[in-house]
Structure formats: C-alpha cells, structure tokens
C-alpha cells in the first residue's frame, strides 16, 4: 500500500531538457487525419507485458507494437522495448512473460523507452485486444515517467471481433480463442511483440470482414466497438 501511495503522490517527474523537447515535439504533431480509410492509414497495434494483472499495483515491463500501414503489417515498422524495473516482478509472473530478472534490470530507462514509443507511435490510432488493460498500463507509465496525460484514440478488437462475428461472440472471449479461430499461429505467446503481431493479424481479418460490410475507416470500426459494448451492457 505504501508503494502505491508513493507512486500516486510522487512529484511530477523532472525530464532532462532534451527529453522535454522530444515530448513537446510529439505533442505538437498534428492529429491523424480523419476519416482515414484502413487502406490509407497507419494503425499501431500494441501489447504490453506487466508485473501482474492488477491494474492498480502492477507496472509496465515491456511494450511491443507493430504498425498496420495501408492494410498491411509493415514488419520493419515495429517496436519493442523493455522498461528498466525498480523492483523485479514476482517469480510466477516471470514464468508468464519470460523476461528474466536480469533482463528487467537491464531494460531501458523508462522515460527514454516511453519517449521512443511515442515517437514510434506518432499520432496513429492504437489498437489492442482488451484495450482497458494496455491503455491503463501505458497511460500510468506515461504519467509517472513523462508527466504526460495520454489521451489517444484506441480501438478494442475484443469488441470489434464479436460485432463482426456475432455467431462466435459467446464462444470466443479471449485473444487465444480468436487467433485460434483464424489459425493465426503464434509461436511465443505472452511476448508483447509476438502478441501485438497476432493482434495485428486479427485486425487484418477484422478489416477484411468489415470491408464486406462497407466499413472501411477507423470511425466505422469504432462505431462497431461502441455498439458491441452497448449490446454487452444490455444483455
């Protein structure tokens, strides 16, 4: 508890001047043009690994991201970073994400890592499966290390997929269900980059399906997500 309070009430992080300049430069970037069709836009699909599943107490270990540019995953336009940890995560968790304690200690300085992530991201919309988790973890880290209040458009495939495949909605809940359904092979699960890639492939499937329903842009996919959230709320 003490740890939690410490983090919440810690003073605003002090960035070195060139870091502050990089952050300002990112903030000054123009927003992604709207509406942009999937064929003419860049999405960044992201996945994070953390010290655990508790949104309040666990912290960000790594970010993996791949860009979907004009509908295709650009393998060269991908990103992976491990954040240097102040405290090493519990042993049972290491078994899941596979980032050893030494690797955690050797990770990048969090502020630098997060700045690199922002610069990689630009103002492209973010996509994840179960956004709440990734978004919370990233937002908290950005506030903690960069003092940034991160407000960014997100798309949640956990809602988009069931909206596009209503008949699968009840049997397919977690990422593994969906990627299994579309035979998306993933060799190393629970690695942020590999998961991001699998999620990006799922976005391609979703996009292809949505196109058949004349949904071709981010806004359209967001509407799907919203209606599904609403449907989940009433059912």
């Amino acid at each position, binding site marked *: 508890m003490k740890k939690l309070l410490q983090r919440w009430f810690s003073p605003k992080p002090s960035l070195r001047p060139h870091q502050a300049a990089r952050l300002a430069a990112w903030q000054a970037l123009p927003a992604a043009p709207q509406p942009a069709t999937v064929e003419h836009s860049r999405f960044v699909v992201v996945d994070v690994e953390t010290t655990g599943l508790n949104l309040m107490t666990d912290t960000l270990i790594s970010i*993996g991201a791949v860009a979907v*540019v004009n*509908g*295709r*995953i*650009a*393998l*060269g*336009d*991908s*990103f*992976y970073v491990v954040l240097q940890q102040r405290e090493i995560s519990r042993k049972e968790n290491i078994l899941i994400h596979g980032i050893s304690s030494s690797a955690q200690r050797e990770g990048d300085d969090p502020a630098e890592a997060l700045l*690199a992530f922002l610069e*990689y991201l630009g103002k492209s919309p973010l996509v994840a499966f179960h956004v709440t988790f990734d978004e919370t973890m990233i937002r908290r880290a950005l506030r903690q290390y960069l003092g940034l209040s991160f407000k960014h458009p997100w798309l949640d495939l956990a809602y988009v997929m069931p909206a596009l495949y209503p008949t699968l909605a009840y049997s397919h809940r977690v990422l593994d269900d969906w990627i299994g359904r*579309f*035979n*998306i*092979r*993933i*060799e*190393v699960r629970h*690695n942020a*980059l*590999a998961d991001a*890639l699998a999620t*990006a*492939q799922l976005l*391609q*499937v979703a*996009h*292809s*399906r949505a196109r058949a329903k004349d949904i071709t842009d981010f806004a359209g996919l967001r509407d799907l997500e919203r209606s599904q959230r609403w449907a989940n709320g009433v059912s």
Partner: protein
Amino acid sequence: MSAIHPSELSFITRHAPFDRMELAHVMWMMERMFLGYYAEGEVIVTPEQGPVDRFLVIKQGVVHGEQNVAKASEADTWLELGEGECFPLGALLANRRVASVYRAGSDTFCYELPAAEFRELIGMSSAFRDFCTRRIANLLEHSKQVIQAQFSHSSVEQQSLASPLSAIIRREPVTCAPETSVRKVLGVMREQRIGSMVAVDMNSRPLGIMTLHDVLDRIAIPQFDLEQPVIKVMSTQLSSLPPQALAHEAALTMARHGFRHVLVVENERLVGLVSEKDLFALQRVGLRQIGSTIRHAETPEVLQQAAADIRRMAHNMMAQGVAPEQLTQFISTFNDLLTVRVVELELAASGLLGTPLHDRLCWMALGSEGRFEQTLNTDQDNAIIFETPPGMTPDQVREKLLPAARRINETLALCGFPLCKGEIMACNPKWCLSLEEWKRAFSAWIDGGSPESLLHASIFFDFRALYGTEHLAEELRQWLSQYARSNARFLRQMAANALRNRPPLGLVRDFVLNDENRLDLKLNGLAPFVDAARIFSLAAGVPQTGTLQRLRLSAPALHIPAAEVEAWINALLFIQLLRLRHHFEVSDRQGGEKAQPLDNLIDPGQLNELDRRILKEAFRQARKAQAKLALDYQL
C-alpha cells in the same frame, strides 16, 4: 526503429531459400516486408494488375494459381502453394504480368516484399538469386507461360475483347412492357428465337430481365400463373454498362456476378444486350473456316485476305499459349494450303490444267518452308521438278512452265511472302528442272564442295513436295540420300561450314553482338541447329526435312542420347519463340501493314533477365550440337 520478433525470423529461416541465406540478408528482407491478409477466395495477384509489384512468401494458408481469368473457378486450379512457398517468381524475374490468377484458398497471410527490394535482394544474396532462378526448374516452361500472359493481353483482349460493346451488339434489343403477361412474353421469345427479354418503361429504361434459364426455376417448377405480369418473374438486379465499355469489362462483369447477359445502357436507355455467347464468339477463331475459305478461293484477293487471317490467327494462338512447335506447324500448314491453292489457280489460269505437263510436275518448297519453319516474314523459296513428256525437251517444258511459275511467285508475294532476293524461285529457269537435271545439279554440289555449292545444298536439301506429282520429289529424295551418305568428304565439308557459324557467346558467357548491338536470332541462334540437323539427317539417312524430326530421328543412329536431343530441341524452340514474338511485336507496331520486311535482329539488352538467361543457355546447347558435329567429323 524496428523490431522483428525472433519467431518471425525462425519461421522464415525454416524455409528455402531463406535457410541458406546470410542472416543479415534475411533481416534486411524482413525489415522491408509487409504482412498481408487475404480472406478465402480473395485474389492476391492477377494479370490485370500489370507487372508484378511484389514477392510473396506464404506465412500461413493456401494459395491457388488459376490458369485463366475469365474461367477462374475451383475446377481450374492447377497450382497449389502452401506455407513457406514463394510466388510468383517467373513473372517477377521477367518483370511481367503473372500468367495466372493467384487466389487465397483459405484465410491466408503472406509476407510481401516490394519488387524493387526483391531485385535488390537478388543482387545482394547469391543464395537467393540461385534459388529464384533455379526454382524455375524448367525455365522454358515458365517463359512460355509468361509470354502467353503477355500476349493474351496484347492480342486476344485487344483484338476481340477490347472492342467496345457498341461494336458487338448484334441487333435491337427485344423488349416488352412490364405488365405484359408471362404467356405473351414466352410466345415472343419462341417466335423470335431469342434467349432473353428485357422489360422497359415508357422511356426505354430497363426494369427487369428474363432469360430462358429462368423459365424452369421461376415459371415451370413453381407453376407460375402465365397470365400474371412478366415483371413478377423477372430478375430486377440488372447489370449494365455503357456502349463505350469494352467487351472484356462485360466478360468480367458476367464472371463476377454470374450473369449471362449484360445490358448496354446509354443515358438510362436500353440500347442493346450482350450475352455470354456473343463474347465467346469473339474469341473463337475459325480454323476450319479459314481452311475452307482458302480451299474454295477463286481469286487471289480472297487468298490475300486469308493470308491476313492466318497471321491474325497465329497471333491469337500465340496468345492462347500454343507452343512454338505447334505454332510454326500451324503456320506451315496454312501457308501450304494457301500456296497449293495459288498454284492451282494460276496453273488453271495459264491453261496448263489438263495438259500432259500438268500431271508431270511437282511444286516444291525449299529452305525454311521445306523445313516447316516458316514464320510471318519468310521469303519464298520454291522450285519445280518435272518429268519431260515424250517428244519434248526440258527447255520446251520450261518455256511453258516459267510464265505460270512467275504468276505464282507474284501472287504469293501479294499474299505476304516476299520474293526471294537470291532468286531461288520456281520462275528462275535454273530452278525449274527435270528430275535428271536436278540430280545433275545435286551431284555437282556434292562433288564440288565450293562455298556456293555448300550454300545451295543447305537450301535445296530441305525440299519437299507441295503440289502435283509427289513421287518425283520422293524419287529425288531417295537418290539424294544414297548419294550424299556415300560421300563422306561432302558431309565433312558441310560440317566444317556449319561450324563457322558459332553461337555468339563471349568469353564471359555474355553475348557477342554485331555493330548495332543486335543479335540475329535466325543466323546466330537457329542456323547452328538447322545446319547440324541437316548433316545428322544426311548421315543417318533420315528423309524428313523438319529440323525437329531430323534431330529426333537421327539421334539413335548417331548415338546421341535422347535427353541431349530434347535439350537441343527445347533450346531451338525457345529461340523460335523469341523470334516469333519479335515478329509479332514489330508487325503490331506497324499497325498490321506488312510493308516493312521483318528482321530477326533483337537487342538482348531489351530482354528481361529470365529470357536472357535462357537464351544464353540455348546458345550453349547450340554449341553442344556443334561439338557433336566436330567430334563426328574430326574437325
């Protein structure tokens, strides 16, 4: 900044050729790759997209290659590619369109490398380069496919499927008012023998269509009341195109939607109807029809027209992927038919028909025509062999025959076979000879061995009968076979002469070119094979005149392994294919006018990488054939 997950790398490096490539090159490639997704049934690469723009490796899923765009369906699958396989290599290397439609057979993810980077990688990684060129196990096969694809765009579609619909509409559309009874409409359809009826409103705007195919499903089986308005059974989902739209758009529309008819609509008004049948008719070339036109032609003008038809059809056949062997055979067959008819007509016009002379003469084809190797620009090479009727001298016979021969030569020239510059034509008194005179001429060449004799031998040895008393030609052949075979010195001279024409491969195995940086496909490419085959056939006593037959039939007697002969033949055919393509391209540029004589000169710099490689290989094969000659005659 980029990050390639090790699992992606490990997937790629499990498959050829990436398993043999340097890791740095694989990484270089991966960083430039995209991952594309294709839902089941989705088209990945098609000829319509133009030259291939990317190299694909299947990450997961199945990809089917289908032979024909218009007929693409599951039944036409001819190629199935799985995980880790690369495509479309041949078209990429050749920088051309694909020959087939590649379609996702299941939900498929493909790694994709843009074409520019693919070429860079070829230059960078020798392992990758070797794979890409060797994977095309049969280079020739692939080149053929690619050429077919290229021609199917320039010819079949341009000449037929590229006509505007306005040119295809055959008649005014038959229409009815939407409230007309079904019974009445069916009556009209039967009466007018039409397969479909379109309902239009007062302003000729189409409202619905009914076809004979609908009668069963919509009327007969449901026992629909025939007094009801026809619009109730009509299909109101109409597909329409403007009259300026091209036939292939209509074909694609039909293929896409499974319709058999496309309405032609201008300013909302129905102006015509194009059916699937109309489009098929465009593609069907009437082989039988041209043949019969030639056989029954009464005037040289009709034959000129037929000659143009032959050329156009040859072009179409090239487009449809007919192999060069069959294609030249086809050209020879029809040229033979045409020549025979010209000879027949002109002999009749000269009053020779029914005279004793007519039954004692034989019109012979020489040179490439004699070898069944004619292309579009082949000069005439012909001669007459006759038997002197009792009471006449050969000179008296010539006096009667030569004027007719000249008319024949001139008419053939009008039909597109240029007069022979070397005067090797039947109208030349030197080549209108009796059987005895021919034997004397041949024995003079064989015994003489001067350069001129050898040149004549190479043209005249390839004679075959086209018209008239064939046994004269057969007798000459038999005599010649014996005589030449027993004359080893002559064969050796022929071989030495043939070896003077070396295929133009330089020291670094590149081409040696003439002053204008051109290669002569006929002289440098075909001639070495043709000359070698002639000598082989003389040595083995094979009477055939076709180069392929000569090679195949002489091989056993001369102990040439069958595989080697087939390699020579493939090489020969490839050169022939390039030559035909060159002729078609040149005559296309000339807009169908045959005023310009066609040459055999190509600039190898204009060839794509693949063709260049094959051509070099073909030249190496020619050298092998020459090596065999050198060995046999100790030269």
